[in-house]
Structure formats: C-alpha cells, structure tokens
C-alpha cells in the first residue's frame, strides 16, 4: 500500500501562480484522471506529484514521508513518470528502451543482469510489443512508440505511475487500449494518476476525477456534466454508464 498526500501546493512561474493551494490525496488501487483546460496546471501538478518540480510552498508526502526526505533513487524505484510527448534521442531497440525503466534498480556498472529479463518480457507483452522487441524505436509508428514508452514506465512495476497526457495523438482504438491498460494497472493495486484531455476515456476508466482550473482544484470525484461545464465553459452531456459512457460537448 502506498499513500500519496499533497497539501496546499503552490507553484509560481514568472510571478504567475501555476498551482494555487492544490491539495490531493491518493492511494493504491486508484486511477485518477486530472482534467482541465490548457494552462490549468495539469502538467505542473503531475510533475510536483512525481517529485520533479519543487513547489514554492506546500509539501508532497509518500506514506507520511516528505519527498525531500526520500533519496531520489528510492523514489525513482517506487514511482514512474512519463512526461507529455516523451522522446528517445537515439535509435535504441524497443527492448533496450524498455530496459531503461529499470535504471533505479540496476547496479552502477555492467550490463543488464539476467534476472531482469522476465520483467522486460512481461512489460513488452503487456503492451503488445513482443514482436517488435528488436526493432529500433525510430521505426515505430506513433501508437507503437507510445506503447513502448508505457512499457518503459511499467517495467519496474512502480507503486505509483504518473502519466502526462498519454493518449494525445493516438487514434481512438489505441487511445482506448492505453486507458484500459492504465486502469488495469490500477486495478492490480497500484496508484495511477494521468492527465487526460479525452473526457470520454476519463468517465469510462478513471475512478476519480480531479478537475483543475486556473491552478485551483475546481472539483473532485465523479465526472458530471455540471463539472465539465464549470471547468471548460461548455455545455456537455454524459450518456450511458460505466464502459459505455460517453461525453458529448454540445456547445
């Protein structure tokens, strides 16, 4: 079990408040979708929750221990983070890319120890990439590449997975697959926090919504038409339930 607690986060950039008194608690088994318009502070919130950006005030703690007290390698082994539009700078093979996710678990020198081979195989299989394992990542399609990155994040089996807009640029089927993978991972007893723009995926798969607007939490809990209206300044309608729910923006 892990328990992530963020209290009164405040982040400013160039005098402007990006996050303003944001508090959040989250525990194992949850899939939390962070929604909000562009510039609402979603990416900053995820980066702070991952321990990569230090808030100006406020604290994030994991199981009662402040991030500042947790050594970076220990934290890296417990949580994985995928930024928006992740990239790979060299034409590595898919397998090598995925293995990079094990960095916090590896000894300082030497090749990849054999004991990690099953974990890599499992991550590749979970993301449907087994047939592509020796292919250079530069030759992958957009959907395959984002799957490879997800496998890279999953390979260390982190207790906490933080993903920034994982479905941007994916076609509907791949976007759905990705959201389903995230919710399956959460169902396995892990905490998943993802920023999502696709409200239909959010309403179908996320257990809880955190809606941000202008750096403040505009609402938490289940996604409702009223919440969408308040956050995005649109009129929306939610039809159906569970796996068949869909969100339509009317105007």
């Amino acid at each position: 079990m892990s328990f992530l607690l963020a209290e009164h986060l405040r982040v400013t950039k160039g005098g402007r408040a990006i996050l303003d008194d944001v508090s959040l608690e989250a525990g194992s088994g949850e899939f939390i979708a962070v929604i909000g318009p562009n510039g609402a502070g979603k990416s900053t919130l995820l980066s702070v929750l991952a321990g990569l950006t230090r808030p100006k005030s406020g604290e994030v703690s994991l199981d009662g221990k402040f991030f500042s007290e947790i050594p970076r390698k220990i934290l890296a082994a417990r949580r994985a983070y995928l930024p928006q539009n992740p990239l790979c700078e060299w034409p590595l093979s898919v397998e090598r890319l995925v293995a990079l996710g094990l960095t916090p678990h590896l000894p300082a020198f030497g090749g990849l120890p054999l004991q990690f081979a099953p974990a890599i195989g499992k991550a590749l299989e979970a993301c449907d990439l087994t047939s592509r394992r020796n292919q250079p990542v530069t030759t992958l399609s957009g959907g395959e590449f984002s799957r490879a990155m997800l496998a890279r994040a999953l390979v260390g089996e982190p207790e906490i997975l933080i993903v920034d807009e994982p479905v941007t640029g994916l076609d509907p089927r791949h976007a759905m697959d990705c959201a389903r993978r995230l919710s399956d991972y959460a169902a396995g007893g892990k905490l998943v926090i993802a920023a999502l723009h696709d409200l239909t995926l959010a309403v179908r798969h996320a257990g809880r919504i955190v809606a941000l607007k202008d750096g403040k939490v505009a609402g938490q809990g289940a996604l409702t038409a009223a919440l969408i209206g308040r956050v995005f300044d649109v009129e929306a309608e939610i039809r159906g339930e569970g796996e068949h729910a869909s969100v339509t923006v009317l105007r």
Partner: protein
Amino acid sequence: MRILVFILTILLVLAFAASLLAGRVWIAPHDLFSGDIFSGRNLASLIVLDIRLPRTLLALMMGASLGLAGAVLQGLTRNPLAEPGLLGVSTGAALGAVIAIYFGVTAISVLAGPLFGLIGALAACALTFALGQGGTIALILAGAAVSSLTAAGIALALNFAPNPYAAYEIMNWLLGSLADKSWTQVFLVAPFVILGGALLATTGRALDALSLGEAQAESLGIDLNRLRLTVVAGTALAVGAATSVTGAIGFIGLVAPHLARPFVGYLPGRIMAPAALGGALLLILADIAVREIHLGPEIKLGVFTALIGAPFFFWLVLRLRKVAP
C-alpha cells in the same frame, strides 16, 4: 559489446607493439620478445624504452581520454557533433601552455608547459561549469564562450610574441605532437588521466537514462547537476592533462564514438569502453603513420588527425542530413 571490446583490445595491443617497432630505426619484432632490449643498454633498448614507449603510452592515454570524453559528451548533450573541445578544455590547456611559452617559463623546466596547460584546462572547465549552471544548453553555450575567450588569448599571445622563435614554438605546440616526449611527462599525466577516466566511467547509467530526455532521466533517479559536474571534471582532468603534454589533437574525440555506436546498439553507456579503446587505437595508428610519412619535416600529429578527420566530418554531415526528417 564484449566481442567488440575484445577485438579492439587485440588490435590495440598489436598497434602498441607496432608503435614500439616503427620509426626511423626499425626494430625487428624478435628483438622485442627475445628480452635483449630489457637486459642491457644498447641502442635498440634506448630507442624502445626511452623514446618510443613513453610516446606510445602518451598516445594511448591521449587517444583513450579523447574517445571516452567524446562518447560521454555526445551522450550528455545527445548531440552527435559534440567532442571534448566543447567545454573549452583543449583551448584552455593550449592557452595555459602558450602563457608558459610566452613568459619563458618553459625554459626553466620542461614540466612548466604541461603544468600551465593543466591549470589552463582546469580553469577553463571551471569557468564553463560556473557559467553553464542550470542546463545542458547553458553548458554548451558557456563552453563556446570560454573557447572563444581562450582562443582570443592565444591569438593575443601570438600577436605579442617577443620574438619569432617564441611565435614558432607556440605554433608548434598548437599543432599537437607526440614527438620528443619522455617518461617525466608520462608520469605527470598518468594520475590525472586515470582519475578523470574513472570519473567519466561512472556516468554510463546516467547517460543511458538521458536517452529519454532530461525529464525522464530525472524521474529515473538521475541527479543531472551531479552528472554535469562529473562530466566536466572528468573531461578537464583526463583530456586537459593529456592535451597539456601533446597539444591540441582534434577529431579523435568526435570520430571514435561514431565508429563504436552502431555496433553496441546506440546506448551511450555501452559506447564508452569501445570509444576509449578505439580512440587509443586511432591515435596510436595516426602516430605511427606520422612517423612513416616522410615529406620533409615530420608532419604534426594534430595536423594529421585533422586531415583524416575532416572528410569524416563531411560524411557525418551528409549522413545526418539523410537520417534527419
């Protein structure tokens, strides 16, 4: 990778032996192995032990430092055109040595040049690191600024050279050469090269993670500030010390990692060992070639590596143009 390292090691041993034998006076291979050379003080032993062995060891250290630092810097900047000179280390060492020549300190002791060069390299790298706080781009820009500052200092020294002989000596040093080196210089350089090389060798894992960009590398537990400090310090020590004895030698640091890269699956950490071995191999071979090419005066090693390195640069640009979208 193991096979590549193995092959390179064997080639390096062969090149090392060839470098002891080749030159104006050829030594027969069986003399080297029969033990005659190590038993008495004859001409052959003098040539091999006091002239060619230190020269070859310096080539080995310089080439390995350049190859390793080049691989590390290309990994850190994720730029295939990066090379050790990027941080201002080469021009810094050159400026230090030039100052020593200019003020005539070299006349007092043969060690003055290398010592001033080492101080110059360390000072240039410290300045680069201090200016380049806060990011890899800032570090590259700071390195460019420091390089141009030190280059201006060298030009100034040439401009104000007290006599043609001093100017000639400065020019000679800037061209880079392994000729007339002794054991003193080997012992002066070795500790710094080993320390610097050891520092650079620790960065493999972090450079691998950096393939994913800075945000992901940090999320994988990499301390980017410490990584930058390690790279700058390691390069300053290893390349700075070697350069302060041999003078500036270009292109090895750029070429060696590229030759290794496709064979090890492009992972920056795996390029380091082959690049160091390859750099040493290339420089020893270049040094043998320099000794065997007779066109009047001995062609300087730095000039030779630049001559064979430049076409490679063209090839690299053409290839990158094809690979780039």
